[in-house]
């Protein structure tokens, strides 16, 4: 079971109530991982409205996650 390091930004940070966490997950892709987290943290935005970055680069939602990956979920923000 891969252990992943997660970071949340903006709306997600607010809804999760934390900026970062380390999780052990059965999910193999960012999309599967997000569904798991959305249920746990009650995230309201669907994945289609977010971007995900793995190891400091934007990634597709269906790539395979590996042990030790750093995953960042980024919602769009527009404040000025």
């Amino acid at each position, binding site marked *: 079971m891969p252990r992943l390091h997660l970071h949340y930004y*903006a*709306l997600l940070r607010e809804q999760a109530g934390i900026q970062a966490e380390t999780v052990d997950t059965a999910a193999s892709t960012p999309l599967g991982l997000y569904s798991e987290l959305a249920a746990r943290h009650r995230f309201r935005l*669907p994945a289609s409205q977010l971007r995900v970055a793995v190891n400091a680069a*934007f990634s597709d939602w269906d790539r395979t996650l590996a042990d030790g990956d750093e995953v*960042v979920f980024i919602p769009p*923000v*527009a*404040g000025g």
Partner: protein
Amino acid sequence: MSDFEFTQEPIDAAGLACPLALDSAGGFATFEGRVREVNEGRVVTALEYEAYEALAIAEGERIVTEAIRRYGALRARCVHRLGKLKVGEVAVWVGVAAPHRAEAFAACRAIIDEIKHWLPIWKKEQYADGDSGWVNCGHAVRTPSQFDYSRQLALPEVGEAGQARLAQSSVLVIGAGGLGCAVLAALAGSGVGRLTVVDHDTVQPANLHRQPLYAVADIGRPKAEAAAERLSAYNPTVRVDALVRRFDDGNSAKLVEATDVVVDCTDNFASKFLVNDAAMRAGVPAVLASVYQYEGQLQVVRADRGGSCLRCQWPEATRDGLVGNCEQAGVLGPVPAVLGQLQAMEVLKLLLGLPGQLRDELLLVDLLESSQRRLAAPRNPDCAGRCVRVDAAVRTAPAAELDVTLPLASAAAAGYRIVDIREPMECEFEPMPVAGHESVPLGRLLDGELVVKPDVPYLLVCAHGVRSRAAAEFLRARGHANVWSLRGGLAAQGD
């Protein structure tokens, strides 16, 4: 009756005010400038005003007309005394009738400031010691600049050549809010020769905590104009042009083509995509930033180098209302200030050719964590706009085609199916004023949980009408033509 006049007779304020008593005017503001007994430490006993009348009248009328137009006043007039006046007498009188007090105060203030600044009027002061002297009332004559760039000239990467390059550069700043204030102040300070600031808004009390270019006295004034005035005073060697208008389809191409770099300091996605698209089409670099509470995102779009664009990062129909802006989510003043300074830094890197420029990256800044994260964001081959063409799905429909204004009870009676898209906590705090509605929070709606029947009109409702509009656009884009948003949300129902 002319809007600007000179008079040799004592000013009759009540008589002048009569033609300004309009039924449509909810606000009437006046200003009286009076002869003071002391000027610059000397006791004054009397004054004598002289003017170059032909020029002053034409210029005075222009100033009054312009103030009426700019602030949306109904009528205004100004009368200036000439000849001899005693201490305490009224030397100049300004009156403005406007729909509300904000426009009346703002226009009145602008008229007296402009009159004092530009009109060819002189006064001869008669002093108590028997002496007298002529004083130019205006301040249009500027002293030579004392602005000193030596601390930045000392940088080997800048020097005289770099400073000269900055002086010849032109930067377009869209939005004069929290980000814009920081960007403008930094660029004016560094000596960028020409700054153009575009903003259609006026200064609001809730802007001041994070927008230090404005003072309490600027409330109600157009931001672009107040910012330009402040920046010109800060560094008179920089030319600052204020455009009090929206950055829109009609003017974006022309404005962006005429500049070296465009800086996006707007607070909504519709404008950010517009800046991105205009920059991509014109091949002009753009520096974009957004803030949220304690965080910010920064991206440099290198249209001139075939780099990735905003649409490469946000290819889905990203919409205003899905995430909060400063008004809805809250923001701490230093957050836009830091992000705006980072934008200014990227602009200077571009103009001076400094190393370390952000390119095909997204910079995430978290000021609670004091952390920065640089994410590689290469050009997306599936970019919805192919980096230039506009993605039709993202373009926002005009409000008139989406919003409806009517009491909820009438909407229910008219057969609208009412859907409350607020979060459960909000619904508990402020229950819907009508029964028989459906409750589907925005996130679930975006996930497809609202079953839309084809023959029934739907009215989406939230607190202020922003999220409901985004949700209505989302459903319309999926082919549901009979979906509407309640304008102003529940907050507007009491009006």
